[in-house]
């Protein structure tokens, strides 16, 4: 038949029960590779431009603000090439290195990468569910669940060897996230409850449970009864720091775990039968069922694995640099939601999620109160600016700019 018809057929996958279309329908784009990157890049440019307008509207100079934010990220560290000595991690030896590992910019970069770690993982939590046709807005709750368990187990066994304690904390966090997300997955699989509503409700449940746990007289409140903050986790539960000083929140090996998870994600999705099933269900559940794949099982598994990523993110943050949770931190933490934007911007590919997470890590660290000079721009304003940029990114990345561009080009060719 005609080209036009074929294209329409290609786009149209049947909606799941309840009439809500699967998000993957939208991302079932054949513009992979380089062409697939055009949309996200244009999206980022649009979002930053619009963000600049907002800054301008407040009466500040957007270039100055962005410059300050950029310097806060520590990315400028790469620009100062020289001849320095760097300590080889976990040893006392030193070696020649082109960058100064102890500069202020280096410290900033460590902070950025720490934040990037958890964004990658909450981003994967969204991406994995997405590949199965589900929109997991519950990364935040799953992240919190992981963090709660990490604090609980991390403060529980004093004096345990790190070889046991660290894996215990990290795995428990991942399992806690998986369990929370598994509820939403189970509900979707058995009664068809839409995961957008159920995961949002689980987010708020997680927030209030945390308020209870770490609040005054809460079961996990620390030894000082006047402050609603947990104790620090035991030394043995902390992740080794390989760059910077542990006291100053140096970079822990958590970033490598996150990067490894990107590889694991890519492997599962592209190279395993599980990933094959997950993708088949995500694109067309009916055809998957017909092909002998259990749709319900995959909904549950995909959600649980997604939650595992987010829970791992929470645990790594606790074991890597936060070490405790305060009641007041819980509602203001937005890492899970930033992961959402990172996953969408990264088009749910491993490389894309990694790069987008770095971008958001920079943005958040650059606009944080510690990095941003209040005389240039108020950090609390900048935090909201980040949220605005995040919203713009999701808004425009949804547009599938790459696809629109190709369509316009084709139309132009047809007209001539």
């Amino acid at each position, binding site marked *: 038949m005609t080209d036009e018809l074929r294209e329409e057929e290609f786009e149209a996958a049947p909606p799941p029960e*309840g009439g809500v279309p699967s998000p993957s329908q939208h991302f079932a784009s054949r513009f992979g590779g380089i062409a697939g990157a055009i949309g996200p890049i244009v999206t980022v440019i649009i979002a930053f431009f619009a963000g600049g307008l907002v800054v301008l509207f407040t009466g500040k100079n957007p270039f100055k603000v962005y410059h300050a934010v950029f310097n806060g990220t520590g990315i400028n560290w790469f620009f100062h090439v020289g001849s320095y000595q760097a300590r080889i991690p976990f040893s006392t030896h030193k070696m020649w290195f082109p960058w100064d590992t102890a500069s202020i910019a280096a410290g900033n970069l460590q902070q950025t990468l720490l934040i990037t770690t958890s964004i990658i993982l909450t981003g994967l939590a969204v991406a994995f569910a997405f590949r199965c046709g589900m929109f997991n807005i519950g990364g935040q709750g799953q992240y919190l669940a992981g963090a709660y368990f990490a604090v609980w187990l991390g403060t529980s066994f004093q004096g345990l060897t790190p070889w046991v304690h660290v894996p215990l904390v990290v795995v428990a966090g991942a399992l806690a996230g998986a369990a929370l997300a598994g509820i939403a997955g189970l509900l979707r699989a058995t009664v068809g409850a839409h995961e957008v509503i159920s995961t949002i409700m689980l987010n708020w449940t997680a927030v*209030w449970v945390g308020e209870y746990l770490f609040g005054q007289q809460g079961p996990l409140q620390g030894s000082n009864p006047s402050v609603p903050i947990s104790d620090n986790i035991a030394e043995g539960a902390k992740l080794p720091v390989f760059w910077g000083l542990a006291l100053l929140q140096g970079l822990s090996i958590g970033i490598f775990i996150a990067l490894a998870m990107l590889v694991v994600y890519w492997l599962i999705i592209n190279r395993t039968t599980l990933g094959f099933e997950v993708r088949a269900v995500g694109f067309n559940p009916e055809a998957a069922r017909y092909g002998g794949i259990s749709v319900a099982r995959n909904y549950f598994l995909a959600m649980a694995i997604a939650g595992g990523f987010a829970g791992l993110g929470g645990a790594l943050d606790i074991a890597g640099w936060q070490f405790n949770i305060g009641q007041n931190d819980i509602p203001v933490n937005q890492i899970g939601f930033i992961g959402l934007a990172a996953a969408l911007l990264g088009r749910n590919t491993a490389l894309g999620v990694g790069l987008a997470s770095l971008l958001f890590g920079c943005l958040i660290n650059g606009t944080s109160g510690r990095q941003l000079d209040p005389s240039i721009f108020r950090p609390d304003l900048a935090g909201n*600016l980040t949220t605005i940029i995040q*919203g713009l990114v999701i808004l425009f990345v949804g547009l599938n700019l790459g696809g629109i561009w190709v369509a316009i080009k084709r139309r132009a060719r047809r007209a001539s």
Partner: protein
Amino acid sequence: MTALAARIGGISWTSPRTIGVVGIVLGAFGFWLALPPLAARTAALPLLFGILAIAAGIWTWSRDERRVGGGAIASGLLGLAFGILATQSSTGHLSTVVVWSALIAATLRYATPLTFAAIGGLYCERSGVVNVALEGMLLTGAFFGIWGAIWAHSWAGGAAWVIGLLIAALAGMALAAIHAIWSVSLKVDQIISGTALNFLALGITGYIFIDKYGNSGTPGNVPDYGIPDVHLHFLSNWYFIGPILGQLNLMIWLSFVLLIATYIFVFRTPYGLRLRAVGEHPRAADTVGISVYRIRYIAVIASGAIAAMGGAYISLGFVHSFSENMTAGTGFIGLAALVFGKWRPFPTWGATLLFGFSSALADRLPDAYGNQWGTLFQALPYVLTLVAVAGVIGRSIGPAASGRPYEKQ
């Protein structure tokens, strides 16, 4: 009335469904017995009714009426647990919490923003556009409502809330207009578009809030020109009803009007017929000359205005201040209520009352049991929504074309 009689006559008393519904009622009844004014002091009663409810639920479940059966089991378990908890508490504590008239009034207060959100969502979803941006619309309304009132206060005085309400509605419409362009014209995934708008609303309201009011927050004199309460003095001496209806906020009364008006509009006017037609089968509507795009635009933008007024009630009529992300998922609970109520105004209202009641209960618990338990009970509305989503919504079927962009031929 005869219709009701016929309906009752038509119930098959031995069908699994009926038994399941009886089970649900029994579970709730067991809990109720343990509460004031009866305040039964023995754990046996909630235990008995809870077990009966669970038994009915299991029987129903085994007869393949899983949803009703599950509901009865859940109702039995909850009734049993809360009932026994209640019998273990002192009557004094219970009486502090369970003051029915105050609870009902608080229920109405908490249900009102949910009602506005859900009814706003009703217009949007009936036209075939999924609206998960209700949360953002509420928040936008909450901020711009109070901002407008503060701004107008200097020249409009005590009536500044009218201006606030108008500005809230306009802001909600602006946000909804983006949703309309994105989901109707640009055919973007409606859930993604809605999620993006939630973030935008959160960022924009937070940004302007800090920029305008900084660390000191909104001025303390907002109650002077907030949305007023309606004092019905003639009711004040009426037993039970007086404390409930005597002093409700204007917006609560407006929500009642909105419900009735929505019912009439959607089910009794030609425009409502067209709205529903577009949501069910846009192509059919198109072939008889109805503009699908126009109706969807109008419906989405109207939903923004309505939801934003619900948000304005929160800031301008209830809390009398604004804080970042103050709606805290209210929009999503409203959305759940809408699905729970099967996209019909009055059942939806019933669902908002249920969620409102759980908030009201959570609000009153700290008075008796200390902050700690009160904090945990703040999670109740969300858990309840989750249970509702699990038990009922799975089966609830919305407008057929919901979520699907319409492609003109």
